């Protein structure tokens, strides 16, 4: 098999399983993630716009369609777990956690200010609803493996979802976790790679290439799927199918093909927007573009 055939994405098609109302709701929630990301970074005056934008539909689908959660009970023992290897996109997750009543919504208003629990990276010690702290790239898949195995040992049917950056594939610990999870047949561990193609210093392919990515995960004995990470219908259908597949024996890797900065056109073309700040009038212009939906889908 050539590298080219390995890398050709086999994108799961949107299915008719997901009704129009659900699709509309998930798309609305993804817009909510983007708008809140703009608002919170406006408070901090620096933040990871583009990293959160590529993950918005993944956040929305997991938290509003896939995961088993209980409103107002972030420590509910039977909840599904979510971990972020790419913790720098947490600005897009915090509004969802507040929306689930895991903490008061006005906490968002003090994002990154002294004494507030919300910073650039998720912190399980400070933020209700964060299942695992991150910030140092590469730890989360191992953390998720521990949660998957620990809940299984205790007879619970819980899935651990781990969002990874594509740049994160360069960390050695990811592959230690990949080996371990397959060895231990951690079928309830689901990795979702936000394949937006960029990292801090530039294009992933230029900085430290990771392809053929799907073939690597298959070689590590994971069940591998590829999906358009901005298509909520395809994401929801795939995640539902995985959850319903009780015959599955191996951990699952979903490669979600995304666009860094998705939704604000100039962020989609300038890698510098990995991190940045929009002064108020530019924030307003970005909001207008997002609401217009011009760059979405």
């Amino acid at each position: 098999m050539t590298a080219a055939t390995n890398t050709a994405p086999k994108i799961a098609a949107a299915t008719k399983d997901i009704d129009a109302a659900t699709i509309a709701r998930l798309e609305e929630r993804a817009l909510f993630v983007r708008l809140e990301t703009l608002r919170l970074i406006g408070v901090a005056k620096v933040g990871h716009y583009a990293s959160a934008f590529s993950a918005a539909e993944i956040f929305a689908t997991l938290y509003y369609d896939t995961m088993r959660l209980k409103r107002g009970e972030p420590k509910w023992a039977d909840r599904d777990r979510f971990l972020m290897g790419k913790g720098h996109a947490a600005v897009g997750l915090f509004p969802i956690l507040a929306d689930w009543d895991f903490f008061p919504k006005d906490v968002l208003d003090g994002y990154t200010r002294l004494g507030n629990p919300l910073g650039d990276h998720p912190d399980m010690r400070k933020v209700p609803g964060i299942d695992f702290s991150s910030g140092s790239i590469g730890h989360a898949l191992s953390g998720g493996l521990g949660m998957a195995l620990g809940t299984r040992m205790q007879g619970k049917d819980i899935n651990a979802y781990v969002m990874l950056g594509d740049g994160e594939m360069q960390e050695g610990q990811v592959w230690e976790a990949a080996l371990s999870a397959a060895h231990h047949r951690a079928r309830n561990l689901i990795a979702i790679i936000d394949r937006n193609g960029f990292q801090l210093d530039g294009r992933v392919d230029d900085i430290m290439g990771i392809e053929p990515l799907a073939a690597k995960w298959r070689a590590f004995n994971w069940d591998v799927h590829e999906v358009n990470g901005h298509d909520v219908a395809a994401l929801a259908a795939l995640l539902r199918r995985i959850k319903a597949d009780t015959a599955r024996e191996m951990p699952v890797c979903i490669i979600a093909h995304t666009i860094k900065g998705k939704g604000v056109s100039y962020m989609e073309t300038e890698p510098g927007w990995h991190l940045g700040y929009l002064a108020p009038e530019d924030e307003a212009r970005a909001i207008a573009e997002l609401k217009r939906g011009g760059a979405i889908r």
Partner: protein
Amino acid sequence: MSEQASARRAADSMPGPVNPDSWHYRQINARAPGLGYLSNALIDLVRDGHPIVAGTADLQYSNGLVLFAKAHPERFLQFGISEQNMVSAAAGLATTGLYPYVATFASFLALLTCEQIRTDCAYSALPVRLIGHHAGIALGFYGTSHHATEDLAIMRSIADLTVVAPADGPQLAAAIKATVTHPQPIYFRIGRGQDPIVYPDDTVFTLGRAIVHHEGDALTLIVCGTMLHPALAAVGVLRAAGLSVGLIDMPTVKPIDRNTILAAAARSRLLLTVEEHNVIGGLGGAVAEVLADAGTPARLVRHGIPDVYSLIAPPTHLYRHYRLDAAGIEAVARETLG
């Protein structure tokens, strides 16, 4: 044309930000006053014929090595997000006769790659240069994962590893040049490149030698790294108020300048260390060891992060909160004087 397609076309043509206060990562780092010093020192060393190579782990804009990469692409190695790989590879590069300078956030370098530093670089006595930038709490609300308040303690306890904490870009450049042929590894602990400049470009650095800014009879502050700038301001205020307060910059944390510490202890009998680090094991710990070993009667107060995980906030807010800004250092000095 459908309404959606029309909207998309309008979006595609949307220009970038119009407000000059808006910025993205590559632009803001280009404006940081201290960021060019690392690359420019290495470029000078290449010009002088030294076998320099530089590497980073996906942070070339944060540490400014992008300038070196542009000047000498054949001498630059991008390791991606693989810090442990980078440090062991640097050890391997050093075995071939090259002088590798590798840089990443101090939190990742000193904590994540600690064993690679200890076993591959220090125990192997290889001339690897480890640049830990954004040390201390300089990364503010990026959180605990990005804070390095243990790095001096960890690095200081590794045998055959020299530890240098320059106050600013010029002192970093001088230290890099002064130590270029040092046969063993060095850990350089630096700030975020946006720190104020204290020293002139022709400042002199001598490994293991402190710099006495002021002598004092009542109290002597001993500081390193980014604390020099606020400490100079604090001591200036105290001296203007008629208090005999001294100030020593201790850029080499290991091997530490025992003679200068003991001379200050003999003169003022009251010492105050100030560091952007846990009060355990860093500069204060090093000074305490010198005083105890020598059996001096001098009293030492260690000021820094009080053995807690720092809160998160913008760095200037944190410096104020932990009394590591000029006003805070002045207040702690006054309390120490009693």
